[in-house]
């Protein structure tokens, strides 16, 4: 209809880059491209119709005849002018109608998009019952991250269920074989989380590195996108007692190995930060053309994904190693203690965010 190019509406709020088709600009509707009105026949037909209506009101003017120009030239001109005016007015009304229609369509589309946005946000709202409005992930919607936030919500719900089941199981007369099933299920649940995180890291590594899906108190303990395995072992140790001498030695060695592995990864991360800073600051700061530096930095960010995956692998190995050292019952107690510890951190975040503010 018109030759206007498709307008992309980069909404900062929505971050959805979509051609809201032919967002109408009034300027597009001006000019004669709406209807083909260059045909002389249109004007003649209009003129005839107008003359007939004028017949009834004035009863004097006969049909305009283009061969009868000498006598009625001024009248013809006037009539032609009137017809053209009417035609222009008609075209204008049609253009306005089309413009308003397009606006209405865009409005409907906007409402639809906002609804989708609201729903997507709401998916991430129920994360273990914690108010996530403080999570602050207000960037553009990344489908990979939206999926992760939704899945994490379910993961926490399942986690709470498992903790509850584990507590009941430990207080009952349940045998070791049955308890083993709970333990293996518990460990597998953590492995599921690491799988989810790996996918999300590919979607947005900064999101994972910043621990944005976690509550504030959990984030305080963040190390490369998750908990620090050696710290975890220290938290669990009192709950594993009584331990045999061999077990105590094994746990001690495991803690030390963990710490060494963590230190190595931390040093690698520091080097990555250093290289990234260097890449961005190459040439001179203040130079306007820094796109090369930025592009070079993007490649380095891929390395960050490897680190996140490696850190999760360390967490996974720690969980698997500790479960090998412990008896089934000890492992069950350990998992329960771990789950309750995380739950308390989440509760701390919740209390902290809803505490009454001091009046000045």
């Amino acid at each position: 209809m018109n030759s206007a190019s498709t307008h992309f509406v980069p909404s900062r709020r929505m971050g959805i880059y979509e051609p809201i088709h032919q967002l109408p600009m009034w300027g597009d509707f001006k000019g004669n491209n709406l209807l083909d009105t260059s045909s002389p026949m249109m004007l003649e037909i209009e003129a005839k119709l107008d003359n007939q209506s004028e017949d009834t009101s004035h009863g004097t003017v006969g049909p305009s005849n283009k061969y009868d120009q000498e006598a009625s030239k001024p009248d013809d001109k006037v009539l032609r002018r009137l017809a053209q005016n009417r035609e222009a007015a008609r075209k204008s009304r049609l253009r306005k109608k089309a413009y308003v229609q397009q606006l209405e369509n865009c409005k409907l589309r906007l409402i639809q998009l906002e609804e989708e946005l609201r729903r997507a946000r709401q998916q991430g709202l129920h994360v273990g019952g914690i108010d996530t409005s403080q999570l602050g992930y207000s960037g553009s919607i990344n489908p990979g991250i939206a999926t992760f936030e939704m899945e994490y919500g379910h993961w926490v719900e399942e986690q709470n269920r498992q903790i509850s089941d584990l507590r009941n199981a430990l207080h009952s007369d349940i045998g070791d074989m049955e308890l083993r099933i709970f333990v293996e299920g518990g460990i597998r649940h953590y492995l599921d989380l690491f799988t989810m995180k790996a996918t999300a890291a590919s979607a947005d590594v900064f999101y994972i590195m910043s621990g944005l899906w976690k509550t504030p108190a959990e984030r305080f303990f963040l190390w490369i996108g998750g908990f620090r395995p050696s710290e975890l072992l220290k938290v669990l140790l009192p709950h594993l007692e009584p331990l045999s001498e061999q077990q105590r030695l094994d746990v001690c060695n495991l803690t030390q190995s963990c710490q060494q592995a963590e230190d190595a990864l931390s040093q690698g991360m520091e080097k990555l930060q250093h290289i990234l800073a260097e890449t961005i600051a190459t040439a001179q700061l203040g130079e306007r053309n820094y796109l090369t530096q930025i592009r070079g930095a993007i490649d380095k960010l891929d390395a960050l994904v490897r680190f996140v995956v490696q850190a999760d692998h360390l967490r996974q190995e720690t969980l698997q190693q500790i479960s090998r050292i412990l008896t089934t019952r000890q492992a069950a107690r350990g998992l329960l203690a771990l789950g309750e510890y995380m739950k308390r951190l989440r509760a701390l975040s919740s209390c902290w965010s809803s505490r009454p503010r001091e009046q000045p």
Partner: protein
Amino acid sequence: MEKIVKLASENGILIMSKSSCCLCYAVQMLFQDLGVHPLIYEIDHDPEEKEIEKALVRMGCSGPVPAVFIGGKLVGSTNEVMSLHLSGSLIPLITPYQALSNVK
């Protein structure tokens, strides 16, 4: 690949690395922390870099770097090294090389 095999057999602990690879640096730091000094071979300074990469992948190294060889045998990449260390199996492997400073 001959070059890799030769390097691995001549050096007790070998890490095939790239100068820009920070994960390689992390593995190097771990070994240093454990009291050994592996040979770090930076393949990006080798004209045959691409061939070496392909060879390492063929040998089963997913990185392809870091690729860790101990006693001439491929141990693996970061995953394998970390798993070995946490299970307590890495130290026995490197003990023969702890007192030496990477001499043949």
